[in-house]
């Protein structure tokens, strides 16, 4: 009961700041897990971004502050939870995506392929791909999206929380973009922008 009271105090603080926090999804652990997987898939080509927290805005600063309060009030075990990413399915998907990245890297750099807001990739500028390579580029994008969709689902399954899939997808969507190389394209607010 005491814990509930503490939780609701924390809830009141964060709600007062117009921020909703899903207490049950370990967002920080998910970001760390996503970063590890992204590093493996993109190899040394992924730009090492030092700060794990996302940039921008009063709301995210408040979110971070609220998370810190909850860290104090909620027993340590749940706050330091780690996301399981060692399942055979995840390993096999990482290997497949990492092998494909060797071909995709050139298309990221040329702007032909960009990162979407749903954690997927899209052939945003087919014109910058030599004509004879376009069917292959389209096929690579389709295969990469198939793997990415399976990855988000596999991570949720490995943690016995299938309902986490949308949150995992959203976490990855942010982190792929955060860790993209300068010059790569990504979707933001419905438009394509360049990093």
């Amino acid at each position: 009961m005491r814990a509930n009271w503490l939780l609701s105090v924390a809830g009141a603080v964060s709600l007062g700041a117009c921020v909703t926090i899903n207490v049950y999804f370990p967002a920080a652990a998910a970001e760390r897990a996503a970063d590890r997987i992204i590093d493996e898939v993109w190899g040394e080509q992924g730009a090492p971004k030092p700060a794990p927290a996302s940039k921008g805005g009063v709301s995210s600063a408040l979110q971070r502050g609220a998370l810190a309060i909850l860290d104090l009030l909620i027993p340590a075990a749940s706050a330091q939870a780690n996301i399981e990413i060692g399942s055979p399915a995840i390993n096999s998907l990482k290997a497949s995506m990492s092998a494909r990245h060797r071909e995709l890297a050139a298309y990221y750099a040329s702007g032909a392929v960009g990162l979407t807001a749903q954690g997927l990739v899209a052939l945003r500028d087919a014109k910058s791909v030599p004509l004879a390579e376009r069917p292959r580029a389209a096929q690579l994008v389709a295969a990469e999206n198939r793997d990415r969709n399976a990855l988000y689902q596999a991570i949720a399954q490995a943690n016995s929380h299938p309902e986490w899939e949308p949150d995992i997808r959203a976490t990855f969507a942010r982190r792929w973009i955060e860790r993209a190389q300068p010059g790569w394209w990504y979707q933001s607010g419905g438009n394509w922008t360049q990093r």
Partner: protein
Amino acid sequence: MIARTRRAAAAFACALCLAFAPQRGAALDELQLSLDALQAPGWSSGPIQAQLHADAAGAIRLRVQARELVLPAPLQAVRTAMLECAAARAAGTAVHCPEARLTLELDGAQRISIAAVVDLDPGAGSLRVRAPRQSVAGGDLTLRLELLRGALTLDTRIDAMHASMLQAALAGALPIAASEGTISGDLTLQLAPASGTVHAALDVTGLGFSDAAGLHAGEDVDASLMLDARRRGAGWQFQAQAAMRAGTVFATPILLEATAQPLQARAEGEWIPGQRLRVAQIELSAPGVAAITGTLEAVLAPQPRLDALAFTLPRSDADALYRRYLRPFAGAGPVSDLTLSGDLSLALDWRAGAAAHAQLTLFDVDIGDAAGGFAVLGLDGALHWTRQRAVRPSRLAWEDLQIRSLAFGAGAMDAELDGRALRLLAPVQMPLLDGRVRLERLQARALGLAEQRVEADLSLTPVSLQRLSERLGWLPLTGSVSGDIPQLVYSADRLAVEGDIRMQLFGGRATLSGVQLEDPFGVVPRLRASARLHDIDLAVLTRALSFGSIEGRLEGRIDGLVLENWQPVAFDAALRTPEDDDSRHRISQRAVDNLASLGGANAVLSSTFLRFFEEFSYERLGLSCRLRAGVCEMGGVGPADRGYYIVKGGGLPPRVNVIGFNDRVDWATLLDRLRAVASSPGPVVR
């Protein structure tokens, strides 16, 4: 509608009459006329302005401008037309401009200026424009146009004009931009209210074009097009031919390259605009495949849709057909990475919502899927598919069928394909290792829809588990599996065994239940099952696994087994000595050490001098593991003072207890220990 033209023309003519009538009084040296709109069959115009200026010498300057033009193809891109006459001469109602300039503005802000001789006679309802050969848009143009009482004749020839002019003609029909290349050709049109003929011949060289997204584009295209059409009633009868001699075209998702063999298409038929398109004869030839012939019917209103299609693809190379024309449509799905060899032919006769028939004939075709570990070799036969027609049996025979590392040998299948249903007509028998698999029944319905369902019944004559496990790279099993495999059902992306699979295993029995494979053709197939083990002879088991020697019986259960990519990610397993087992219970020193090492380094022999004995007695033994998230929660046959008993001593001395203390063991570590045990050289004396 003609009356409206006539009235407008008449009004215009009157104005001109006034202008050119012999002067009777005040001189008229400037006249302006404007019309808001003009309508004629097949074309219309927005505001028309005309200006007339007569100078003192009697020479007349004329300027007529029509805006917001809506003209029939191929002039549909012309928006504004302006005719300027520097020195017009009049004779009655006719005007003759020997030095006229016709300026056309096209969609996309392009502008053409043509010098011509213009004769205009509104009273007779006639207009004649003759443009002698001159340079326009980087090429040469010759043009002759006659409009007589609503009948139009156009004769034009262009030479080496820049390809951007082609875009102007196509504007509105196709949203593409032509960036390079030249066009040459001629066009002859005769249009009258009730009749018409068109003859067009076009040749492009080095054409480059693309739409905004780059999904429909071409490079270095050399092509020619010929069209002949004649008006018949409400429609047009046409004959068209197109050939691409060189270059590359990408029309998503297919890439067309004219290599040694040009792409050619011919079509003949009838087009009723806004209603129907009927192509009575199509011929297509493309690199890698034999020439396709066929017919097509489409309904154009309210939405364009295909109404009937019939074609024949004669015997062609299956791999070329797949790689160029089929695989691009497969995306990244299950049939997107096949290797094919051999030939096939295909014929289709299809009518929307009515009878249809297709035949696919295979000539020594091999199909392989490296990712799925599947191959069929030497497929021969014909598949017949019918809908709303008498069913025709299909027959396929093959020389070899391989799934993973299992080879099923030769076989043949007789089946019926009807609409969305498939039915096996006779059992199919195939050899498997030292036994035989029989597909007793195979039935499918609603194929291609979300509710599709495939059912199969299999039976096996005894197949050696030793050979099977060897072939599949499993832990060595001894025993056999045989009998009726209960019904296999594939639906909603899941392959399930309805019922239990029974097998003889290690001198006892095993029953597998609830076996299902989720997402079998997907990226991560997931196998679920439960198992019960009865009366396993531990002597046989430990000999097979090189685990040392344990005598006795074992029973067990494995619940909730989940394999991802064929590796365990979860299960709830418990193996133990059966309650009423009265067989000999002996365990060798090596087996004791191995069990101890499985339980973790903390397992302890209850009496150190017992290490000098080769064999011990036990009352009962057992091990359990509940695997979740990479961690095995371990247990044994019962609690000890601290920890749990893996082996509980009993019976004649010497006895031994093996006690485990680690109740949470990392699964990967446990597997490493199992592998170490299986490959260890001999007992370790401690």
